[in-house]
């Protein structure tokens, strides 16, 4: 007990985060019959370890929690090792099927106006139409993803009952301990067309920025802690480098960088590439006409310039509702195929 009194609020918060991570990992480790759970466990342990690594790299933060952080690092390695052993024992065909149906962890970044939201929303809807469970999260305080998903611009945020105060958390708020991240999604996320579940940062636009501040730590924590093997998680990040810099994409395995035709959009994309770090990078060239790719930015998927899409944007409609047969939506369906390990249609 004496030791506990020495801890600062920040350190207590860090320890609580690690405790909550173990709950997620134990849940996955308890589903021995499902090979996807082992794949998910390995991924989740690695994801938490990467996040922990950013804490460990800063020598000055959480000094009194250091012994626990070292222990946590060892715990995470043990979970990953155990998952790897279990994965190695799974029948190869069964394992391949499990890999194909494992949910994606995707962050979408790029310059403002590049097409992040059109890409993430259409991708979310397409994945949901394949019968997948999809959680789409808007990490931009400006509304956008809700509209493009086909929801009214209500900007569904986390209600107060989903949150709790913690002096050590960012802006003093975090996800309530009553819910695991996936429970919070299932309970509080708005239901968009095709069953996509959506959460954003609530309202901003007045001088009181508290609504967004209250939910941001909870959302980032939720993204990082959704272990569920069968859920796809897609986050649409705020324009530019600020939120990647804050590592809001810490949860991701895949990062899509969207680049538009303007030279400055390409310059932004080049500046964003270091932020992708060790994640798999997919470059999407949007509003593509016939020009060559920007130097150093070879596109994997090209979304053609599409007047129907521009019209949908003008009217504030979801592209997949307004122009389902457009070349732009077809291009994003190739992106969906790429992420779900299917044959990519030409």
């Amino acid at each position: 007990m004496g030791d506990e009194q020495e801890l600062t609020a920040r350190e207590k918060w860090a320890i609580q985060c690690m405790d909550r991570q173990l709950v997620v990992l134990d849940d996955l480790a308890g589903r021995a019959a499902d090979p996807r759970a082992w794949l998910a466990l390995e991924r989740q342990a690695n994801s938490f370890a990467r996040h922990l690594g950013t804490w460990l790299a800063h020598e000055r933060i959480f000094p009194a929690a250091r012994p626990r952080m070292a222990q946590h690092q060892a715990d995470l390695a043990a979970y990953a090792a155990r998952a790897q052993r279990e994965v190695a024992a799974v029948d190869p065909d069964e394992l391949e099927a499990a890999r194909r149906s494992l949910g994606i962890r995707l962050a979408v970044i790029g310059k403002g106006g590049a097409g992040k939201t059109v890409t993430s929303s259409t991708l979310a809807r397409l994945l949901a139409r394949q019968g997948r469970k999809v959680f789409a999260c808007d990490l931009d305080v400006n509304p956008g993803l809700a509209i493009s998903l086909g929801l009214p611009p209500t900007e569904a945020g986390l209600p107060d009952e989903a949150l709790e105060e913690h002096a050590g958390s960012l802006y003093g708020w975090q996800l309530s301990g009553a819910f695991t991240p996936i429970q919070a999604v299932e309970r509080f996320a708005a239901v968009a067309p095709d069953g996509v579940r959506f959460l954003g940062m609530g309202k901003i636009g007045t001088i009181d920025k508290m609504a967004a501040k209250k939910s941001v730590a909870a959302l980032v924590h939720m993204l990082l802690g959704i272990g569920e093997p069968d859920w796809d998680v897609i986050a649409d990040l705020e324009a530019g480098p600020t939120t990647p810099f804050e590592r809001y994409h810490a949860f991701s395995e895949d990062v899509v960088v969207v680049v538009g035709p303007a030279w400055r959009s390409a310059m932004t994309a080049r500046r964003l590439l270091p932020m992708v770090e060790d994640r798999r990078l997919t470059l999407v060239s949007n509003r593509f006409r016939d020009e060559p790719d920007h130097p150093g930015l070879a596109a994997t998927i090209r979304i053609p310039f599409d007047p129907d899409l521009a019209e949908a944007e003008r009217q504030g409609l979801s592209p997949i509702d307004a122009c389902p047969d457009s070349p732009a939506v077809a291009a994003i369906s190739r992106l969906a195929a790429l992420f779900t390990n299917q044959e990519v249609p030409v």
Partner: protein
Amino acid sequence: MKIAVCGKGGSGKSTISGALARHLARQGHKVVALDCDPNPNLGISLGVPRESVEDMKPILNALLDAGHTHKDPKIEAEVLLGRYGIDAPEGIRLVATGKIERPSSACLCCGSHNTTRQFFGELPADDRVVLADLEAGLNDLIWAKPGPDDVVLAVTEGSAKSVEIARRACRLAEELGVTRIIGIANRTVSDVDAKRVAEELGVETFVVPEDRAVEDADHLGVAAMDADPSSPAMVAVGELAKLVTR
């Protein structure tokens, strides 16, 4: 006078800011251009060569490189402008507040916001125009904190999302006590569109037409004012320059 330009990413803030600065300079005003985007690129629209824009060292990065910390006494904005600003065409002085280069390298983001506040708040603007091209979204408007004597331009293109953010920017500027708020209906294709935007924003709204010349210049990474100053959008911004300084 001080002008803060805000709007959604991709709405054309930098294109409008760059062209407006050039026109103001041509009309005889001394202009200081502040690039407050942590992804600085205003130089392009001002006509600064692309390489110089890529290499430009924003204030916060320069200070960090020189070993400064936030605990050091603040250096006056005018001194920083002289030290870290660069010359853009037509006598414009350009300075960027901060650039984010890699994840968590330092606390750059709130730092550059503080620099935005310091510069927009402190730089004397009695005999010159201080024009700030703000970061996408609304947050930076709160940081820049324009007041009753300042002008806010809320830039939007035709998409519903862009209009909504400009609308909120107008309301926010009103809350801050700004009296001259001008909506910019950028890349407007029809009178119907212009009317719709004006109604949504609920403020005096100025129309800048859709212009292929601007799009082509953007694609090449050159200033639209250098590519074709007689194009319809650039001519419109010339009129805007007269309107804001009236």
